[in-house]
Structure formats: C-alpha cells, structure tokens
C-alpha cells in the first residue's frame, strides 16, 4: 500500500550480473570483445594463452569492488578464523573491548566494596558473633564466612527481552514465585531504560543496570540486541553479574540469525531456556547454605551457653574459692606456698609447712573446698619466725604457769618462779632449740611474780586494830577483817591459777604498854580472834594457824604508832612451785 514512488532506484543487484558469469562463462567473451578496440597480434596471443585466467582475474576484481559480495566473504573468513582460533581476532578487537572490560572491572570492585561494607556492618552484631563462631567451628576464615552469608541470594525470575521492541523472548521463574504478566513487565523494563536515559541525559549505550525494590533487586544486562534482567532476592555476588553477561553473550551468539530478523516469534528462544534455567539454579546453592547455617549456629550457640552455665559457673565459683584459699595460705605463718596450679582437672598446691603452722586441710574446709578438688602436698620445715620459736620453746621446755617465756632477738628469756629442776633443764635445752641463739633466766620468788606481788602487798598491808588490853573485835575491826578476807581470796585465786599453794598466818601484836606476859597473851588471843572470825569465809587449807609476832621492843614514838601495834595482820607464804611437770 505504501507507494514505491520517490524511493531512488537501487544500484543493480549483483546477483543477476554474477549469475551468468558463474553459470555460462563461455557466453560472456563475445559481448566483451565487442566493447574492446580491435586486438593486435600480441593481444590476441595473450587472449589465447591466458584467456581463462584473465577472466578469473576479472571476476575477482569485480567481486572485490562489490561491497555485498565482499561482506559475505569477510563474514565467512571471520567465522572460520574464530572457529579455528579466536585469539587473533580477540587481540584485534581488544582496543574496542577495553572500555567495556574496564567497566566490568569497576563493577566488580564496587561489588567487592559492597560485601566488605556489609561485613563490617555485621561484625559487631549478634550475627557477627554467630559468624565468628562458625568460622571457628569450620576452620575457615571469618572473611570467608561473611562472604558466604552476605552473598546469599536467589534469582527468582529471568527475563530475556528483545531490546528494540521490548518484547519478551523468554521468561523463567522459580516455582514458588507468582510472576505478574511477564510480557508487560518486559516492555516496561525497556521503557524504564528509555525513561531513565531521557531523564538523566546519558549516552545511548548507558543503561539502568540495577533497580532495587525492597528485598528485590533487578539486575539488567544489555547485549547488542537483547536485555537480560534477573530479579534477585537477597545479596547477589558480583559473579552473578558476570554470569548474566556470559549467558547473554551465549544467547546472542546462538540466536544471532533469529535476532537479526526477529518477527515476534519468541518460540525459537526456547532453545536458550537451559542457559536461563542455569541462572535460576544459582539460587539453590545459595539457599542451601542460607537454610541450614543459621539454624546450626543458633543451636550450637544455645548449647554452648547452656554448657557455660552448667559447668562454667561452678567452675568460676571453684576458681574464686581456690584463689581465696591460696591468698589465705600465703598469709598463714609457717606455711610457704611453692607451687600452685591446675593439673589434670584439679588444683594442686605444694609447699613447706612448719608442724606448728595452721593445718592446710582445715583451711581448705573453711574455704568450702574438698580434697577432691584441691590436692595439697606439704613438706615439713622449721620456721624461724619469733612466734614459732617461742611456741617451740614452750613445747620443749613446758614451763610452769609461773614462768613467762619471751624472745628478744634470738635470746630466749625465761622469767618467773619455777622449781630449780625446771630451771636447770631449761638452761640445758633452750640453746639447742632452733631459732634460739642464747638463753637468759630471771628467777623470782613466787610473791614477786608480776601477777601476785601487788595482791600480796595488799593483804599484808591490812591491820585489824584492837583497843588497849582487848582481844575482841569491835565493829571497825570486824570491817577490817572482812576486807582482809576479801584481799586474801583474791590472792588465793591468783595463786591457784599459777598452781601455787597459798598459806596465810594471822599474826597478832601488842603495844609496849603494860605487862609483857599479858601482852604475849594478847598477841595470841588477837590472832586467834581474827582467824576464828574469818574461818568460815576462807578455805581451811589456807589458814595454817595463828601466829604471834615477836614483841616489838622499840619504844613507840607516839600514840598512833602505839595503837597500830595493838593489831593483827596477815602474813602470806607462797612456796616455790614444787614438782616439775612431765613433758607432753
């Protein structure tokens, strides 16, 4: 219906001209000869000899000048060349391919950067910890694990689209995906390309390569005649991009003829379905990992946590007690910790122990540890600490309570009252004791002992006073006698503690006035009066008897002194400790 008028006449098609040449070479020379000037002899000879060859050359010349024929020949030559060895052609094309390759490389780098970024993002999250654990478990590097996970994806749909018309050539989906009118989507994909190009005014070869909708990413690869779009869920690795390119190249190569004269028949592209299916299959690999790994990781994490709670916390408590126990041992005099460690699942402590030091087993119990958990290995030794030297001396010398042992430097001092036998034994043994350099004694009478001397003085200072010529106790005397009894009791208690036998005598005295006989009598009566009075108050063993003091023949200086002489006082006797104690 479109009129052909106005279309310039095409140059004569080469086929009709070539056809007679090829089919009937014999018919041709006459027509040519008619156009040529009349031949001379040589020319004729040449025509006779070289006739056929000349025609062949002429034909070749013609063919070389005809672009259509030349194109055919070149095409054939290239095809053969590539089939034989594609390298020479690839080398020749490299300058053209260079920019495209550079673009691919920059894309790959961008992809790598993306995965590194997401790795960094994840590295401090719980997910990151799970991946670190997985890396530990599987013995692969953390980077590998991160890559494995961040690159999880699946290709859900693949569109092969005729670039020019936006017509759908092939469409594949994973079984679970419900695809919406794919042929319209295909059209829209190309329309969007145009839209993006128009809107941002970029070169015609530039294209919208990535579209992102929530979890879905659409990657579009552009070939010379087709578009390959992949709808991807998740993070696809840059290798997928390469795979898309490769698939597209393969398809374009396979379908080159159909694509050049595409009339809307998409059925021929069914041949490429296996290639496209391979893209969908890439999903399976990624997904298998996705399904299992987090699961396993979580279970393992939970188990690890449970184990930690179950074994870890008691172990922590045990460790804490062990450390406290060690601290205590180190502070304990007479114990020297030489080695403390965990060996074969139990704690072991080795060291030196003075026999007088605290018992490690008892300390262990105090720290609520059992000898199952802690094994102690103690070598005996002698500690030269002052306390230990002293305690050793006490054990060896067994001093009576009236003896006080002390250490001044390395001098052992024994002060107090003791039987002679004890002193002589102590004097012999003490210097031989470890830690004792020399030995000194301070012998004392029992009444001089620090704990007793004052009490003795207090008892002996009391005076129960009598009226002149009287031996009966008036109320003041009774009071004084009672007080005296109290003092005696205190002294007795102290002496008993020191295992000393106290003796008390009430000694009466009289003044220098009057008859000496009477006075002698008064002395006796007065002593007995006090004794009698106090007998119920004091243990009888104590009161050996009343005594009279010898008459004071000196003249009393005054009345007061004279009155003081009409009195009774208590005289204390404290014998040295008697029997030496047996050494335990």
């Amino acid at each position, binding site marked *: *219906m*479109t*009129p052909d008028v106005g279309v310039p006449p095409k140059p004569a098609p080469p086929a009709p001209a070539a056809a007679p040449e090829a089919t009937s070479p014999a018919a041709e020379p006459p027509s040519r000869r008619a156009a040529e000037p009349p031949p001379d002899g040589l020319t004729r000879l040449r025509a006779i000899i070289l006739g056929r060859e000349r025609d062949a050359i002429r034909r070749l010349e013609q063919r070389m000048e005809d672009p259509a024929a030349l194109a055919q020949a070149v095409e054939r030559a290239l095809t053969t060349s590539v089939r034989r060895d594609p390298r020479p052609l690839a080398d020749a094309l490299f300058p053209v391919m260079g920019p495209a390759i550079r673009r691919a490389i920059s894309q790959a780098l961008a992809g790598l950067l993306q995965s590194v970024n997401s790795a960094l993002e994840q590295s401090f999250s719980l997910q990151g910890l799970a991946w670190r654990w997985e890396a530990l478990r599987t013995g692969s590097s953390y980077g590998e694990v991160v890559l494995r996970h961040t690159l999880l994806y699946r290709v859900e749909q693949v569109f092969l689209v*005729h*670039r*020019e*018309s*936006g*017509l*759908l050539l092939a469409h594949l989906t994973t079984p679970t995906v419900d695809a*919406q*009118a794919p*042929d*319209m989507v295909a*059209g*829209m994909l190309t*329309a*969007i390309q*145009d*839209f993006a190009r*128009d809107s941002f005014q970029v070169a015609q070869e530039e294209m919208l390569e990535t579209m992102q909708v929530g979890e879905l990413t659409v990657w579009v690869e552009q070939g010379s005649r087709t578009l390959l779009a992949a709808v991807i869920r998740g993070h696809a690795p840059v290798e997928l991009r390469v795979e898309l390119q490769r698939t597209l190249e393969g398809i374009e190569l396979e379908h080159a003829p159909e694509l050049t004269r595409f*009339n*809307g*028949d*998409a*059925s021929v592209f069914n041949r490429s379905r296996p290639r496209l299916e391979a893209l969908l299959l890439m999903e399976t690999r990624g997904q298998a990992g996705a399904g299992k790994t987090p699961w396993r990781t979580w279970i393992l994490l939970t188990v690890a946590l449970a184990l930690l709670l179950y074994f870890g916390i008691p172990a922590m408590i045990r460790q804490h007690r062990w450390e406290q126990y060690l601290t205590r041992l180190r502070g304990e005099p007479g114990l020297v910790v030489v080695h403390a460690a965990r060996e074969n699942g139990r704690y072991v402590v080795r060291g030196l122990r003075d026999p007088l030091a605290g018992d490690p087993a008892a300390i262990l119990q105090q720290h609520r540890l059992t000898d199952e958990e802690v094994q102690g290995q103690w070598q005996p030794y002698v500690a030269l600490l002052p306390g230990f030297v002293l305690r050793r001396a006490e054990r060896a010398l067994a001093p009576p309570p009236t003896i006080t042992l002390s250490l001044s430097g390395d001098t052992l001092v024994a002060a107090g009252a003791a039987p002679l036998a004890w002193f002589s034994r102590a004097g012999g043994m003490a210097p031989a004791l470890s830690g004792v350099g020399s030995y000194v004694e301070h012998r004392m009478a029992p009444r001089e002992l620090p704990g007793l001397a004052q009490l003795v003085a207090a008892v002996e200072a009391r005076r129960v006073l009598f009226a002149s010529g009287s031996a009966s106790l008036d109320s003041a005397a009774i009071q004084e006698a009672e007080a005296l009894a109290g003092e005696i009791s205190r002294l007795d208690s102290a002496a008993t503690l020191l295992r000393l036998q106290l003796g008390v005598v009430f000694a009466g005295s009289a003044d220098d006035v009057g008859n000496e006989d009477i006075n002698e009598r008064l002395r006796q009566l007065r002593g007995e009066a006090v004794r009698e009075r106090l007998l119920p108050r004091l243990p009888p063993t104590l009161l050996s008897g009343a005594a009279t003091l010898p008459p004071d023949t000196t003249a009393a200086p005054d009345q007061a002194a004279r009155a003081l002489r009409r009195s009774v006082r208590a005289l204390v006797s404290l014998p040295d400790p008697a029997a030496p104690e047996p050494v335990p």
Partner: protein
Amino acid sequence: MTVLEKKICMMGAPGVGKTSLVRRFVDSVFSEKYLSTIGVKIDKKSVTVEDTTLNLMLWDLQGEERYQWVRLQYLRGASGYILVADGTRPDTLEIALGLQENAAGRAEQLPFILCLNKADLWGQWGITATQQEWLKEKGWTVVQTSAKSGDSVEEAFLSLARQIIAQGT
C-alpha cells in the same frame, strides 16, 4: 498455529482517547498511574487472525504534544502503530498527519491505522468526509471509533493485526 509477539505504539495528540481506546480493548493488569509516572504504559492483547495469534503489546505514551515527537523513538522495534485523532478536533488530525510523516521518515515502513475517535459525538464532528476520502486514497486505513461506546474499537485493532500479518509474509 504460530504465536508472534508484536509491539504496537499508540500515537496521537493528548486527549484524543488513546488511553481510553486501550482500556476498552484490553483487560489491564497495571494501573494507569504508570502513564503519569514513567510516561509509558504497556498492555497486552492477543488477537487471532486465521492461523496466527498475535500478542499485541500496546505501548501507550503519556505526554504533552511536544513530547510526541521525542517519543517517536518508542517506535523502535514496533511492528505497527495506531494513530489516534479526535473527530471533534480537526487540529488533532493535523498532529496525526505530522506524526505519521515522521514515523514514515524512519527506515522501515510500518503498518498503521488511523482511528478517528469519539465517533459517539457525531453532532460535534469536525472532520469532513472529503478529508477522510483523501486519506483513504493515500492508502490509509481509517476507522471511526468510539472508546466510549466501544464502537469499532475491536475492529480497528484487528485491522492493524491483519496488516501486520500481511506484511510479515
């Protein structure tokens, strides 16, 4: 039975009823919002002519008049186009003629038809019978359609489909 995919472009001045015609002809999947957002909406309709089924992919373009020229690039890869003019507005026929001229200036000669739309508005008709005769003499297929009543819409698309098949063989 062969199945062929064909890209068809709707072309014409704004407001002539391109979108309405497509809506009449197809059961649309996508919202017409696409038109305003990216300027293109694609719909599909299968028609069968003899033993060939054509899947017509109808590209409907949105835009102001001046963009219609730019959008000629959408004709790339198309197997045909539908020119639409509003029968009540003669100026829209001028635009349709201009578009056709531009389209024909491209390398390929594509089958097309002209829809004189809004045929239901007979009273306000502004395109003369002489004009239509002249177009038919030029070899154009001219169909009077009404997207509103549905008159001749199916027929218009089918007529283009037939042309495409005729040219394809």
